[in-house]
């Protein structure tokens, strides 16, 4: 066995050292593309996921969101909850919100929306809403007869314009009529139009918290959610526990908990593409590795026959091809990695733009890289040994003289 390994290594080494360099470069090139194929699309999809979850944090959920228990529509003592939450170490800011359903009307055009009641000054610390007003201004503390509408409903969205109904002509300064889900009707002046290029935001409207309280006749301190931002990203789970320990009995979720369900829906098709692309990539990769190495071995059938004829064991011959293909694949992975990382660096600087403003930067997932490397190495050993084994089983005469 030791002799087989030594001889196998000698055969492989000399074939690498003095073999055809063009063939080597070609094989390594193809293998690097196979590697790229395995890791690139998943990285793009990873980038989309990150973008999506970023939206979740920046708009509806913050880092941690507290929601009413059971069938309750409201958190009853939101101010009490806020007080407790703000006292927890590691919490940067917290605010309460009221989400209700309504329809908005302007010049005979009507669209259904979710209206969120917010405390405008607090939102600056919590969300990106105040920073995405593309026309007009964000709400102020005194904005009681004013409303912010999403760019899609205003009809000014450049990205989603064709997909959804809109109000057509509603601009900053226009008056719109809002009919709340309890039938109460109010008229507001459009103070600003917000655009996040994210449907959950751009399809919504926003008024002062006090408005919703008044329209629905709520007690002070009722909220549909309490949104929390924390100091340190990545500590969401620990903070969730801390908040519970601080005596908050409502339901506490991290943004990941919340997006998971949503992502699962929104990304389901994407996830399927991801899995399929990995699967197809693997199959194609495996087939290509096999073909390349098999052709390489067929080209050297005679050499295998000679080696056997002079007394080299089939074991050494098979091992030499295992070494050879491992070498090819390692170089291929290395080249693929260089290619991949340069592309990653490029796309970090020049993100792929979706819907004109959504910048997708592919994510490097070390687990995926390790998985792909291990898979390719395993495949290479199989692809190297199987054909070599079958050829080395052939009769010497057939291998050398073809009959």
């Amino acid at each position: 066995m030791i002799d087989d390994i030594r001889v196998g290594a000698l055969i492989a080494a000399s074939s690498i050292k003095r073999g055809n360099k063009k063939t080597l470069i070609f094989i390594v090139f193809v293998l690097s593309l196979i590697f790229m194929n395995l890791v690139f699309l998943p990285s793009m999809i990873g980038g989309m996921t990150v973008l999506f979850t970023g939206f979740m944090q920046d708009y509806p959920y913050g880092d941690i969101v507290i929601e009413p228990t059971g069938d309750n529509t409201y958190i009853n003592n939101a101010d009490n909850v806020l007080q407790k939450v703000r006292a927890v170490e590691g919490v940067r800011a917290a605010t309460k919100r009221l989400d209700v359903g309504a329809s908005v009307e302007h010049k005979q055009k009507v669209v259904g929306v979710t209206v969120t009641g917010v405390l405008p000054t607090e939102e600056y610390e919590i969300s990106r809403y105040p920073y995405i007003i593309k026309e007009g201004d964000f709400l102020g503390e005194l904005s009681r007869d004013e409303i912010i509408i999403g760019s899609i409903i205003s009809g000014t969205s450049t990205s989603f314009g064709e997909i959804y109904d809109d109000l057509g002509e509603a601009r900053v300064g226009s008056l719109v009529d809002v009919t709340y889900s309890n039938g109460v009707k109010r008229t507001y002046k459009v103070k600003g139009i917000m655009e996040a290029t994210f449907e959950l935001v751009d399809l919504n409207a926003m008024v002062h918290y006090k408005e919703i309280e008044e329209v629905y006749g709520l007690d002070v301190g009722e909220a549909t959610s309490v949104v929390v931002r924390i100091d340190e990203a990545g500590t969401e789970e620990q903070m969730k526990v801390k908040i519970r320990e601080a005596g908050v009995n409502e339901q506490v979720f991290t943004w990941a908990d919340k997006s998971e369900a949503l992502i699962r829906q929104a990304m389901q098709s994407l996830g399927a593409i991801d899995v399929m692309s990995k699967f197809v990539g693997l199959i194609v990769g495996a087939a290509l590795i096999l073909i390349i190495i098999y052709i390489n071995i067929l080209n050297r059938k005679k050499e295998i026959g000679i080696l056997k004829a002079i007394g080299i064991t089939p074991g050494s011959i098979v091992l030499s091809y295992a070494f050879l293909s491992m070498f090819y694949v390692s170089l291929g992975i290395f080249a693929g990695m260089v290619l991949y990382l340069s592309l990653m660096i490029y796309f970090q600087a020049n993100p792929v733009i979706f819907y004109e403003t959504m910048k997708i930067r592919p994510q490097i997932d070390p687990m995926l890289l390790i998985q792909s490397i291990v898979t390719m190495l395993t495949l290479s050993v199989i692809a190297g040994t199987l054909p070599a084994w079958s050829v080395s089983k052939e009769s010497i005469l057939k291998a050398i003289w073809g009959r």
Partner: protein
Amino acid sequence: MIRVKDLKRYYGSGATTVRALNGVSFEIRKGEFVAIMGASGSGKTTLLRILALLDDATGGEYTIRGLKVSRLPEAERSYYRLTQVGYVFQDYALINEMTAAENVYILSMMEGKSKKESYRTALEALDKVGLKDKHDRVPDELSGGEKQRVAIARAIAKKPDIMFADEPCANLDTINSEQVLEVFKDLNDNYGQTIVMVTHEPWHVKYVDRVITFKDGVVVGDEWVEEQ
């Protein structure tokens, strides 16, 4: 040393059967340099391949030093090929990506010798064929005669009981052929190497001790060559 009794090798079956060897018997003793001669298609290559354990006989018996090798399992045949039998091919059959020395010492390594010792053995064998100073050349950098001498060095490095050569000079001009035949003669005279060589060149006869002549798969002549 080797004994062949009623050896047969048929190719194909039925009406198209080719009787390449049709009952061949002879004996070769240690230290003999034997030429196998005969017209093309008379069965010389077929015989040599069977003797070198590269092919199986259809019938008959074949013994090396009393051991019946005709029906050994492949692993043992592989071991025999490695340790007891040297084979020189018409087209050299060197590994093109290995240097002369590597082509030779790979076999010593296969036998389990250290790299250093293998290398020493290889140089020794290359010295015997007069190519010590070209040990680090690859086959492409050698002439046909030199390549064949490397192949001979490979065959003798393991000090085989018997060495076979199938038309080793077929691809060589007269000068290179003479060099190769001189090497054989030297190995036979000075090291007592037993050699069985197939050839159809009458002038090669002067190098050998004995000529066995084939025709249509049977032995038609077996003579000793007079020393000149």
